[in-house]
């Protein structure tokens, strides 16, 4: 097999595995996603054995090593900056208080912690649950959902996750560095 054919095969495998994994993820089938990934790795490995020419040597290993190193540095620095920006702009998830009244209405009040640590009241909605809901009640429900799912409430969560991801990558790098350092005798 010529190198060009091998690269085309790899591309086709990547497209196929991407399709299967995304479909499996949407269907919640983790087993299928893992099986598809394992099959893709196996196909790529088998294809490599049929190559009639060298596609990887010491120079390409050095190039990919340096490219990986730069990618790692850029990804960690950019990830930490983005995480810091997200954490700085994040608001806490709004809290909610509800009061039921004897006439069948419910009062939903939203409040949120401000940057100074105080509590700011956001909004208050009176919703009629007695059976004859008005347009205002529906609007109040809409407000309830949009405020509860405020993007700023998620920004902090994403920021924390990115920070942890960057931290884990650094840990992984350290572990692999130690492994190769021992392997090559330092």
């Amino acid at each position, binding site marked *: 097999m010529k190198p060009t054919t091998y690269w085309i095969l790899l591309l086709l495998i990547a497209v196929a595995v991407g399709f299967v994994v995304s479909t499996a993820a949407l269907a919640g089938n983790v087993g299928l996603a893992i099986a598809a990934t394992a099959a893709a790795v196996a196909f790529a490995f088998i294809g490599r054995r049929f190559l009639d020419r*060298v596609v990887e*040597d010491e*120079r*390409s290993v*050095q190039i990919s090593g340096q490219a990986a190193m730069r990618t790692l540095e850029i990804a960690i620095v950019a990830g930490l900056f983005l995480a810091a920006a997200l954490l700085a702009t994040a608001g806490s998830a709004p809290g909610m208080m509800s009061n039921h009244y004897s006439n069948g209405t419910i009062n939903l009040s939203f409040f949120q912690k401000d940057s100074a640590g105080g509590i700011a009241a956001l909004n208050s909605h009176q919703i009629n649950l007695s059976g004859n809901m008005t347009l205002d009640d529906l609007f109040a429900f809409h407000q309830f959902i949009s405020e509860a799912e405020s993007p700023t409430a998620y920004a902090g969560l994403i920021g924390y996750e990115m920070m942890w991801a960057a931290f884990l990558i650094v840990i992984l790098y350290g572990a692999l560095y130690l492994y190769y350092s021992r392997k090559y005798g330092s």
Partner: protein
Amino acid sequence: MKNRIKVYRAMHDLTQEALAERLGVTRQTIIAIERGKYNPSLELAFKTARIFGVTIEDLYEYEETKSGDDKS
């Protein structure tokens, strides 16, 4: 680091592709070595010298750079 691989390759009537195949590397690596863009490992340098039946010193010439380090 300077090298005379191109000269020895011509003397042995070897194409870049043929030399790459005998050394077990890609043609791009031979091109990079000949242009002085990539310094081969000791193993590859020895292999190259052995193919041409010469010593490493005949093939490669070390030039000290100002900073003391070499590009590789």
